[in-house]
């Protein structure tokens, strides 16, 4: 009696059965009624089966890999925390990187998770649906692990406890929020170009260098391990973004101008978002890895040039903003740091003037610009602080209507002049930080007239803490922003003299002396 044993499935067959074979065309309702979003952006798809799954991974293998990574990650986090790992970082100033990161990044990972699960529902082809669903789960995991890795610091340092409340309210977090609000309110293909391609592919390394290498360089094993745990996911995300671009371009020549406009738009929006990331590299990491300028040259100029050379066969050109970002790489981190330094009351993290040897490092890394445009004002602030007159600018900033950055970047070609652009739409004036943001607005003004600008909303009386009496005779809109933001006073102000600085020094002394 012979048993008939069926052959074990190969990986490829298994993948096909677990993904493609589970997809079917609807019969109760026509497909275009069930999937209306794939058509309205103007992208033409003729054959969804031409989608090449760049990363063949079945759900069961996915769970297995991810679970293994989680176990390792949490074992390391536990060991780091048990060992008072927070005292092994280079300097208490480093912890301010985590404060800025916590407010600006995990909430955006969560938005990415929502975006990809939305796109997974909207796409017709089974290949992109599966890939987007797995990316959504990844983004959710990143959101959680980032928060978990930083939560131990919250037991010891100020300014980490209200990031979720502050995310939708705080002036300097509006740029990242607007970035994702813009992407998630676009159609599925634009979302894929925005997040899958421009952010995950073109710009992601610039994020990884300061956070992950920065954490490693500065003794933060917790944040470093989170980064490594995310890295294999990122490789999958990058290939998905690139595949989506190629798929759209191969499907129909009419897709090219639409895709090119999205590449131009989202590369620029991502670049603006990265100004504050660059600032961490140049100003906030006590032990520096490389300058933002050097990172930009390697990861954007060189890698980006190679990428767009590769895409040239589809007719894609380098993003329109390419030249401007090269000019700006010498300036934006300094402009951003001065921007935060001037607002000691309005940030839940500390700022400071770099030490003399750090100023020298900046002079060396930015020989064309630092001594001429930025060092004098930093030294001026330092003298003022030492004389008891620490700069504290109390006015409300003007913001760009599109990227929501405070207006602080210079006119191209003239580092001393502020760059202003404006347009009039339906009788109302709108202001921008650059030609690129102005163009984005003019392409879709209906969308960007709704931008949330914190200082404007405050002046409308929309940013009041609970219990504010708007009928009181001395009521002034926006006068109680600190309460509205739930700002912990101990978390604000200059690093010098802060509770974090004192506690870190005290605890470290206890750990190393009798």
């Amino acid at each position, binding site marked *: 009696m012979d048993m008939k044993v069926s052959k074990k499935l190969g990986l490829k067959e298994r993948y096909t059965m677990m993904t493609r074979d589970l997809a079917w065309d609807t019969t109760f309702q026509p497909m275009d009624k069930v999937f209306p*979003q794939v058509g309205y952006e103007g992208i033409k798809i003729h054959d969804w089966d031409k989608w090449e799954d760049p990363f063949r991974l079945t759900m069961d293998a996915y769970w297995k890999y991810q679970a293994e990574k989680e176990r390792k990650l949490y074992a390391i986090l536990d060991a780091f925390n048990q060992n008072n790992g927070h005292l092994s970082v280079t300097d208490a100033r480093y912890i301010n990187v985590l404060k800025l990161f916590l407010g600006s990044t995990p909430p955006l990972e969560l938005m990415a998770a929502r975006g990809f699960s939305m796109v997974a529902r909207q796409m017709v082809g089974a290949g992109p649906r599966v890939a987007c669903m797995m990316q959504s789960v990844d983004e959710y995991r990143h959101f959680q692990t980032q928060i978990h890795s930083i939560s131990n610091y919250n037991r010891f340092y100020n300014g980490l406890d209200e990031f979720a409340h502050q995310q939708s309210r705080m002036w300097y977090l509006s740029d990242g929020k607007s970035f994702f609000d813009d992407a998630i309110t676009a159609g599925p293909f634009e979302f894929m170009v925005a997040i899958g391609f421009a952010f995950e592919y073109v710009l992601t390394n610039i994020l990884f260098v300061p956070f992950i290498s920065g954490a490693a360089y500065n003794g933060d094993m917790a944040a470093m391990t989170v980064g490594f745990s995310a890295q294999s996911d990122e490789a999958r995300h990058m290939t998905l973004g690139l595949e989506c671009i190629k798929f759209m371009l191969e499907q129909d020549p009419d897709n090219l101008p639409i895709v090119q406009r999205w590449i131009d738009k989202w590369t620029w929006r991502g670049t603006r978002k990265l100004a504050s990331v660059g600032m961490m590299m140049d100003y906030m990491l006590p032990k520096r890895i490389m300058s933002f300028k050097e990172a930009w040259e390697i990861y954007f100029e060189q890698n980006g040039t190679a990428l767009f050379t590769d895409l040239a066969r589809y007719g894609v050109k380098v993003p329109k903003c390419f030249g401007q970002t090269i000019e700006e790489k010498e300036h934006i981190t300094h402009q951003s740091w001065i921007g935060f330094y001037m607002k000691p009351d309005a940030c839940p993290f500390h700022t400071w003037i770099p030490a003399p040897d750090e100023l020298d490092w900046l002079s060396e890394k930015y020989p064309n610009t630092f001594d001429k445009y*930025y060092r004098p004002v930093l030294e001026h602030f330092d003298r003022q602080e030492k004389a008891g007159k620490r700069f504290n600018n109390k*006015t409300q900033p003007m913001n760009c209507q599109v990227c929501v950055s405070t207006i602080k970047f210079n006119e191209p070609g003239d580092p001393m002049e502020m760059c202003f652009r404006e347009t009039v739409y339906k009788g*109302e*004036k709108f202001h921008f930080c650059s030609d690129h943001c102005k163009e984005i607005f003019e392409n879709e003004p209906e969308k960007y007239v*709704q931008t949330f600008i914190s200082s404007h909303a405050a*002046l409308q009386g929309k940013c009041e803490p609970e219990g504010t009496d708007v009928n009181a005779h001395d009521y002034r809109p926006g006068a109680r922003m600190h309460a509205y933001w739930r700002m912990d006073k101990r978390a604000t102000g200059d690093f010098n003299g802060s509770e974090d600085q004192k506690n870190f020094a005290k605890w470290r002394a206890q750990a190393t002396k009798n």
Partner: protein
Amino acid sequence: MTLLKTLAPYDFPSSDAVENYAGRQLLYINWERHRMFSRPFVLALPPETPFGEIIDAYMSDCFSYHPDWAQIDWSKVEWRNGNRPFSPDRNKSLADNGIGHKDLIRLATPGLDGIAGSGY
């Protein structure tokens, strides 16, 4: 022409329309080549506000931290509303000076270029 594409009618009001400011209007102020302040700043003021008050109260309050503020020769300053040069009358209101909602007033002080001529 708009490139916006939507699945349904899409018509939402501007977040910062003048009606939202209860009789006031937004005004942005910038001091050219003095970028240490935040940045151009924004105010919400009634259109009847005299222009002199902008200088004496708001600009002075913010900008007097800068050593150049005391050096300004007010007979030589140049004003622009957006990109258009204009000569504001201190005693007239914002409205009578032709300053509307969300206008950007730019003060240039020739010869003063910020700390060590850095534009800050």
